């Protein structure tokens, strides 16, 4: 009963279309409330996101070894040091190779799994759970399984055991960069951990495709299978595909855990964040150079995100919601 009355009052012309504003409170009351709600978050955001970035920008122009309150201004020396530093440049190459491998492979596998699970009728929930389960596992735990068991370079590693049944010699998966088998290890870890996550996104999108489209395509003579997939399913998944590729790329850019753990003590296969870790927190504790590196990476990712958003029309993909 009271609800009906409430609705009636709320629909008075003055309240129409305006946000629910408590009576007897003016602009000042609203401003106060706004800060009450957002204040704690914004304070934290300034202290723990904006201040560090600002401080880091400051440090990047100083000789800041073993100290975070340096006094010697050195201009762009840290930047030129990082950009001419073979290791840092190499880490950017490592990232590029990594992204070129992991992004398309994960995209294809998660889409493939989604297509399979979507078509399956029997035990669908079971299979979906199996593919999704690794999402809960950490990169550290997965790296451990891969390094100590699946791709252990010794005789009793799983891969070497299986290859041994076919008479193949033991392979040092991680300990030898020639040939670079370590990429297989690195890429499969991430594949196992992340495919389920993206499969869920693709599944949701697949279930949103109106069935009439498939009926219409069948009437128009499209053969089930590749033709239907190519001309109906794939275009309908465009927004999700774009989002997935962007997410994969940003995630690859931040790759740290598996490289750090799988390739500890090696000099190859260091992506940018691992390189920065050793620069800033390794023997030298060079916060100046580390900060300059962080600034360069931040700038790069901003440019890439913006470019990608522009090129792929991201943001227009409202259907994914």
């Amino acid at each position, binding site marked *: 009963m009271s*609800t009906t009355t*409430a609705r009636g*009052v*709320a629909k008075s012309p003055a309240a129409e279309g305006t*946000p*629910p504003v408590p*009576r007897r409170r003016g602009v000042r009351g609203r401003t106060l*409330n*706004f800060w*009450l*709600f*957002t204040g*704690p978050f*914004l304070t*934290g*955001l300034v202290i*723990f*996101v904006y201040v*560090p970035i600002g401080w880091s920008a400051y*440090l990047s122009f100083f000789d800041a070894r073993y100290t975070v309150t340096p006094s010697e201004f050195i201009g762009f020396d840290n930047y030129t040091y990082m950009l001419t530093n073979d290791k840092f440049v190499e880490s950017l190459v490592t990232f590029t190779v990594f992204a070129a491998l992991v992004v398309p492979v994960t995209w294809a596998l998660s889409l493939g*799994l989604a297509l*399979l699970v979507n078509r*399956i009728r*029997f035990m669908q929930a079971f299979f979906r759970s*199996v*593919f999704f*389960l690794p*999402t*809960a*596992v*950490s*990169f*550290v*735990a997965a790296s*451990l*399984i891969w390094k*100590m*068991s699946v791709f252990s370079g010794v005789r*009793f590693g799983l891969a070497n055991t299986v290859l041994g049944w076919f008479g193949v010699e033991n392979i040092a998966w991680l300990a030898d960069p020639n040939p670079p088998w370590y990429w297989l290890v690195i890429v499969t870890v991430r594949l*196992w951990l992340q495919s*389920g*996550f*993206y499969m*869920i*996104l693709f599944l*949701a999108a697949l279930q949103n495709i109106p069935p009439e489209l498939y009926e219409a395509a069948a009437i128009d003579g499209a053969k089930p299978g590749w033709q239907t997939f190519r001309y109906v399913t794939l275009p309908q998944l465009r927004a999700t595909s774009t989002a997935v590729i962007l997410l994969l790329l940003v995630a690859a*850019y*931040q790759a*740290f*855990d598996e490289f*750090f753990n799988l390739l500890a003590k090696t000099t190859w296969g260091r992506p940018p*964040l691992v390189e920065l*870790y050793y620069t*800033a*927190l390794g023997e030298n504790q060079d916060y100046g150079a580390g900060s300059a*590196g*962080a600034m360069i990476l931040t700038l790069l*990712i901003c440019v890439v995100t913006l470019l990608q958003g522009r090129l792929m029309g991201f943001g227009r993909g409202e259907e*994914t*919601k």
Partner: protein
Amino acid sequence: MRTRRTTTGSTGLYLATGIAAFLFLVPFYLIVRNALSTDAEITGENWKFFPTDIQWGNFTELFDDPTVPFGQSLWNSAVVGVLHTLGTLLVCSLAGYGLARIPYRHANKIFYAVLVTLMVPTAVTFVPSFVLVSSLGWVSTLRGLVIPGLFSGFTCFLFRQYFLGFPRELEEAARVDGLGYWGAYWRIVVPNSLNFFAAIATITFISGWNAFLWPLVIGQDQQAWTVQVALSSYMTNQTVNFHLIFMATAVSILPLVFVFLFLQRWLVQGVAQTGIKG
């Protein structure tokens, strides 16, 4: 003709799905097998599919091992995980609501200031964050592990988007009952959004439990290690005890398997929510 096609088609379908599922389960099998074997069996000449004698004693041995404070690290992870989740939900949901619903002159500018932080992944700024946190004297402390991670622009953004779609009628009813923004939020909005909160909580907890880079940077002191840092230390130890390492892995994954089994509905929902990230 049509039925034959579907039968062969579905045989292939189930075969492909079955093989993929088998491959996805192999790592889990390896954890269980190794965690319950002796080192002699793991490293033996011939592959043993299952341990001859299941070694439940590996579990207690793990917690008695003096080289790595595994029990302590497990406790740290639990505390960090819970505080991280509760704190993030509280701070980010309030901000999301404020941005979505309370009219304020500069609200748009402030929202853009939040959005900008989405372009810079927090992992990339770990050096500056460490600089700040270390000058606050928070290295190897609980505060240092939890507080810097609470202010997620992305979570705030998700809450804002969610509250924009929250039915206004409910809040209007609350307003007629004389509640201000604060009262309406706690009595009407939150109780009617528990599904969304649960979904975000599940995702936040998992990512907190699995986080590695920040706990590694902050946990300089063994007593402040989280379970991920402890696991990582096993890989660089001089002596390798396979059965202990895999028992540790199994124990570290177990809480998440429970989360997964009992909260899967919210987890899937959470993934679908976070997947819209832009």
